């Protein structure tokens, strides 16, 4: 069953026509990966879903409800957690304050979600009173994901979480996302094919603001031609 459905999204950033009729769906309980080169429109797709860059035409349905005309804060309150590409860390807030802020407008069992996140990312407990801006890159990513999970309720949009992380951190991140998949649905934007192909169930490939390929991740792994053409993988 589709938890999130995008239908023919067209988004402009100033005079630039970024999304040119993007349609895709995210199945409940899955990890769906959105691939594409730099500038293909992946981040804009997530930002359009969140209402930061609203589409001019097309619709976004979440739980069969049209959310395309809602403001960002109302979209978030529907249960969509968001991890931006730059992590969006509140550098002057402590880890505790950041996660408490995530609970403020969250639906669902926030205490249970918080506890689980602290089990999954024990470093957050360790640096509970530390300013978020002083955490390492990997810890910041954990905090951004935990914040989105606690704030959201059913769907996480995660934008390039492996960017700038060491291979060990990417490995840890992968394990964490796989565990999180048991409790939430994830739409992941990623350029790290090796990582994403190991955890994803479905994929979409974007090029020049359009979806050019979609299907099961297992099939993409075998499709060398598509991988080479759109993802630059030999």
């Amino acid at each position, binding site marked *: 069953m589709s938890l999130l459905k995008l239908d023919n999204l067209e988004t402009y950033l100033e005079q630039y026509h970024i999304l040119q009729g993007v349609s895709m769906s995210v199945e409940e309980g899955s990890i769906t990966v959105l691939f594409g080169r730099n500038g293909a429109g992946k981040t804009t797709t997530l930002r359009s879903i969140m209402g930061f860059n609203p589409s001019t035409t097309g619709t976004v349905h979440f739980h069969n409800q049209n959310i395309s005309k809602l403001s960002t804060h109302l979209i978030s309150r529907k249960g969509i957690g968001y991890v931006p590409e730059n992590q969006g860390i*509140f550098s002057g807030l402590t880890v505790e304050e950041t996660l408490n802020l995530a609970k403020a407008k969250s639906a669902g069992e926030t205490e249970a979600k918080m506890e689980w996140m602290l089990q999954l990312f024990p470093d957050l407990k360790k640096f509970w009173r530390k300013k978020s801006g002083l955490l390492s890159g990997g810890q910041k990513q954990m905090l951004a994901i935990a914040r989105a999970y606690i704030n959201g309720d059913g769907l996480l949009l995660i934008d390039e979480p492996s960017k700038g992380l060491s291979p060990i951190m990417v490995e840890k991140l992968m394990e964490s996302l796989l565990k999180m998949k048991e409790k939430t649905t994830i739409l992941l934007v990623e350029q790290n094919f090796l990582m994403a192909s190991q955890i994803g169930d479905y994929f979409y490939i974007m090029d020049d603001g359009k979806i050019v390929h979609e299907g099961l991740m297992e099939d993409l792994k075998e499709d060398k031609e598509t991988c080479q053409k759109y993802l630059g993988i030999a």
Partner: protein
Amino acid sequence: MEVFINLLVNGVSTGLLIFLLAAGLTLIFGLMSVLNFAHGGLFVWGAFSGAWIFTETNSFLLAIAGAILIGMGLGWVMERFLIRPVYGNHVRQLLITLGGMLILSESIKIFWGPNPIRVNMPGWLEGSYQFDGIIIIKYRVFVIVIGLLLYLALWLLLRHTQIGLMIRAGVMDKEMVQALGINVKGLFTFVFLLGAALAALGGALLAPYSGVVFAEMGMQYAILAFIVVIIGGMGSLQGSALASLIVGVAGAFAAYFMPDLSLALNMLLLVIVLLVKPTGLLGEKGSAV
């Protein structure tokens, strides 16, 4: 010694009055990225409406409450109809808030005429304290106590309440705050009303302090508040408090020893701070307290 203590008390009390104006200004800038030149207009409306209510009712507490309510009402209108349509456009903000300042200052003359108005001191705050031959005016002590209490209240609001947490996060990353389900427009309105209330309160407290109010005083104090906000670090409440005290005390000493250089001294302080630490004394991205 007497002169030194008197100048210090004068400087601290004037500094804390400027702080009331600067606190709102710095929070509005930090959260909303709006340089609100009309803020001085709210200050002067607070001064006139407070003076008028006090004259009519002889109740200083009622005068303060009335001035705050009028300031908040004007602040709501300003935020809703002047500022909100120009969020994100600094040139239009500059023009529209300067226009708002002029409208607020000139509209004072419609209600209270073009001449300055004399304001009396409330009876219970008249007189002075004497210690070892040093005379300290009671009203100045009152202003210092109110200023410090308000600083403490603002600090507690920002540090220990959920809305304070949201404001601090909003100062750091407005977009991410929205992505957490927080209505940032509502937060803007709250901060703007808080700033308007503080500005109006500052005006109402200044009226008996200076003994006379006039329509152009808004711009005069707004310039001081802008200097304070820049010296302290834009968006930093603690920075504004510290800079208010520095500007107030420096102004009091300069007015006594070199009166002609009083405003120039503030500008000199501003230039020195900008050269040595361009982000201001306590200013850094992501710091609202």
